């Protein structure tokens, strides 16, 4: 590191605060050191010492930690509920139409459907169908790489059609990436109470992270982050201690030589 550059007075007069973060095991964090240094000086220090604790790197880690923290502190399961929606068709038409839903240009992500099982209950008249749907994978690439997902996403769909009660219940859950997260969706079609020519549609979804896998991934990431921070903090401390020592030593010498 060039000593000369650090001793030069900074050009910019803007001051910034730089925080050293300590991450506790429960993912909360605290600032352990607050350093106010001139912006220009930080630039020079950052240029000259690669592993110095950089502002943008701190913010990046902070962002990741925040995301992980909010994820872990929130409930394990996320629930969604869609408002009921009406189709202007009688229930039987909607249920017959169910089997013709794909392909359609608005849902181009569904590329294959196969029936795995189908049974008609001779006593109740209920029809149970189990299908597997193949969808174009929409997960981000980093998730695929991290958790080894395949190209196509597959969904297992089970439907119960009960003509006795005029209820059709369709549940879907993901097969792909199911070791990581399960998205469990349930749809219900039933005749509208307002008119037999209308059908009510309601939908709920439940997303559950497989905490085991997330936890180990999060733990691994946390450990690595803590190590990095500690390393960087240590390096930063020693580097800066050196800088400060030399800076003020130089100035002392300078002022001593001036006065003598």
């Amino acid at each position: 590191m060039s000593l000369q550059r650090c001793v030069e007075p900074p050009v910019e007069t803007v001051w910034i605060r730089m925080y050293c973060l300590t991450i506790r095991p429960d993912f909360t964090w605290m600032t352990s050191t607050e350093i106010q240094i001139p912006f220009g000086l930080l630039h020079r220090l950052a240029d000259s010492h690669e592993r110095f604790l950089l502002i943008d790197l701190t913010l990046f880690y902070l962002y990741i930690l925040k995301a992980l923290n909010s994820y872990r502190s929130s409930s394990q399961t996320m629930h969604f509920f869609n408002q009921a929606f009406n189709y202007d068709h009688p229930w039987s038409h909607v249920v017959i139409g169910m089997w013709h839903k794909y392909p359609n240009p608005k849902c181009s992500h569904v590329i294959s459907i196969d029936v795995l099982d189908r049974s008609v209950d001779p006593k109740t008249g209920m029809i149970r169908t189990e299908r597997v749907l193949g969808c174009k994978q929409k997960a981000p690439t980093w998730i695929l790489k991290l958790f080894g997902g395949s190209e196509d996403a597959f969904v297992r769909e089970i439907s119960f059609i009960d003509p006795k009660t005029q209820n059709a219940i369709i549940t879907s859950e993901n097969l792909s990436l199911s070791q990581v997260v399960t998205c469990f969706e349930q749809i219900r079609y039933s005749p509208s109470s307002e008119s037999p020519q209308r059908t009510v549609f309601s939908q709920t979804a439940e997303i559950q992270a497989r905490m085991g896998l997330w936890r180990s991934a999060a733990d691994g990431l946390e450990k690595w982050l803590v190590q990095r921070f500690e390393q960087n903090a240590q390096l930063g401390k020693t580097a800066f201690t050196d800088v400060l020592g030399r800076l003020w030593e130089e100035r002392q010498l300078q002022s001593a030589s001036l006065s003598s």
Partner: protein
Amino acid sequence: MADSLSPECTPLKKEYDACFNAWFEGYLEPAVSASASPQKQAEYSQRKAEEFQQKCGKIWESYRGCVQKALKEKGLDKLLEQSRTENPLTEPPQSSMPPSSSSSS
């Protein structure tokens, strides 16, 4: 209808789908009206279930066999098995909220 996950099963799938749809469209509305009387409903269901087996049983066997093979090739059979173990869903869910997964990782 959409294709099958394996192109070689697609023609079988289309034949099976056509068979089911034809049967189903004839089944549903009378089933709703037959529900008015439990005896009628039971008799109707029995008859129709047999009819379905008769009409579509054969194509179902061929189609099913093809799909099972395709699933194995794609490596989906294990995932399917796991999903079936955790959520067999042999009965319709009781409440409007889906049952939570039984396993904890």
